[in-house]
């Protein structure tokens, strides 16, 4: 496995250097390193429990898992020294698993909340233009939206901020196939914007459609780092690490 780990290059737009993080006492991310160029889209793959979500949350500087060791650098900024809100202020945006739409608030309030901290990204007009469904439902309680609409809102919320690195955690999870296609369309649009993105997805096939590159994690370590096509073509690799 170790031969696959690349030496992190500090000149990269974004780099993760040997990070180790813990949930309480469980050691989850056990020394992950990779780097991403600007505007690149990377799929972070691996089976359940491989540490994908934990890696994303570590990058977003969530309170848990707790980063014990390692460096995370975005555009020269040392993310590993920041807290979640500071990371968000320099342009890291996590679209978490389960969307985490804020209950008790309307669609628009969810977007307002995204723009309380500076710097901000898209204006509401831009957002509603790209997401007409949200415009229709702007006064509606956000939690009453359908799963797909909630996912749209979650993505829109990220775009409402001035973002440099987008982290998508399981964007298709729990959605009906037809909705998945719609979210896919939106993400392809986002892709055109040229935002550096890490996408974690269980449905590797769907993720690889978006990604330029794939990184496969296995028990908290990078097991593979290569082009997306390589993963699609290499059945053994898929069977070994993705179980498909």
């Amino acid at each position, binding site marked *: 496995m170790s031969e696959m780990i690349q030496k992190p290059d500090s000149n990269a737009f974004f780099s993760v250097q040997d990070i180790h993080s813990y949930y309480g006492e469980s050691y989850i991310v056990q020394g992950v390193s990779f780097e991403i160029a600007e505007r690149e889209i990377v799929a972070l793959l691996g089976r359940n429990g491989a540490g994908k979500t934990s890696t994303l949350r570590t990058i*977003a500087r*969530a*309170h848990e898992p707790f980063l014990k060791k390692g460096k995370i650098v975005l555009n020269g900024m040392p993310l590993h020294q920041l*807290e*979640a*809100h500071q990371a*968000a*202020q320099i342009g890291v*945006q*996590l679209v*978490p698993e389960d969307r*985490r739409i*804020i*209950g*008790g*608030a309307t669609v628009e*309030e969810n977007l*307002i*909340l*995204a723009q*309380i*901290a*500076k710097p901000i990204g898209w204006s509401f007009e831009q957002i509603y233009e790209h997401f007409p469904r949200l415009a229709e439902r702007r006064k509606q309680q956000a939690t009453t939206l359908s799963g797909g609409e909630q996912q749209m809102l979650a993505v829109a*919320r990220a775009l409402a*901020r001035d973002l440099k690195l987008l982290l998508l955690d399981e964007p298709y999870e729990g959605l009906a196939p037809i909705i998945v296609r719609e979210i896919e369309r939106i993400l392809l649009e986002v892709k055109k914007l040229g935002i550096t993105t890490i996408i974690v997805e269980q449905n590797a096939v769907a993720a690889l459609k978006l990604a330029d590159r794939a990184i496969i994690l296995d028990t908290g370590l990078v097991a593979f780092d290569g082009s997306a096509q390589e993963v699609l073509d290499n059945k053994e690799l898929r069977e070994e690490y993705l179980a498909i």
Partner: protein
Amino acid sequence: MVNQIFLQIVTGLQLGAIYVLIALGLTLIFGTLGVVNFTHGALFMLGAFSAVIISGNYGFVAAIIIVPPFLFFFGVLMERFIVRFFYDRPHTDQILVTFGFAIVIQETLKWIFGSNNIPFKMPAWGRGILKLHEYVPFLDGFVAYPKWRFILITVSFFTVIALFALLQFTRFGMVIRAGMNDSEILSFLGINITRRFTLVFGLGSMIAGLAGVFAGPVTNVDPGLGMFYLVPSFLVVVIGGMGSLPGAVLASFLLGMAQSFTVSFAGLQAIVVYIVAVVVLLFMPRGLLGKKGVLD
């Protein structure tokens, strides 16, 4: 008969008003920060002591102006230096540390001011009685009630309104409400939620200070006050549903009315608060209005 029932309702309201003022901050802090604050009674007491000292020297208006900000500041410091380290610890640890701090506040006040009651002089504009029969048509004869109690009810009412307005209609409130729901996602959106939580703790303490200023003249001021109100205010919060502001308001008045209407049965009156608590909790485990918070 009508008079009596009317008076008992008023009494229930004003008893409830005191509970509201004390419990509001407690439930706000629990709902937002998830901290069980056994110091809250002591904060109320600190408010009452500050109020009696300041109003004695500089007048009651000065107390209104100075005490709530002082308690706000005190709460901020308390959050910053004690409570913050207990967010991730179990509730029982939070109970223990805040209980310990309550003892420290109480004993310090006792040390400085002694244990006896300090008479709280009401301001001239608050003294005297209101002749209710002149305003309320269905009352006959002479029905009066102290003016201060109505001031208390009014202050309590406006505090509730102000807090609701703050939470419902301001940006700060929106963040706080959202934070009660999911504080992590807000930090992913770049909001420094920790700082705002500190402010909320200050806000909760400030309401306790306000309670001290306005309830102090009727509960009187001595170092046993904090522990005395701690138990009922916790009952209020738990009966209402931990973290639910409307629940706390509802529970306050429920307890106030229960106390007011059992007044002629000495034994029952003494324990009615506990009976209500036990009955409510046994049948509605999460209290009257659940625990999902202000938003619901």
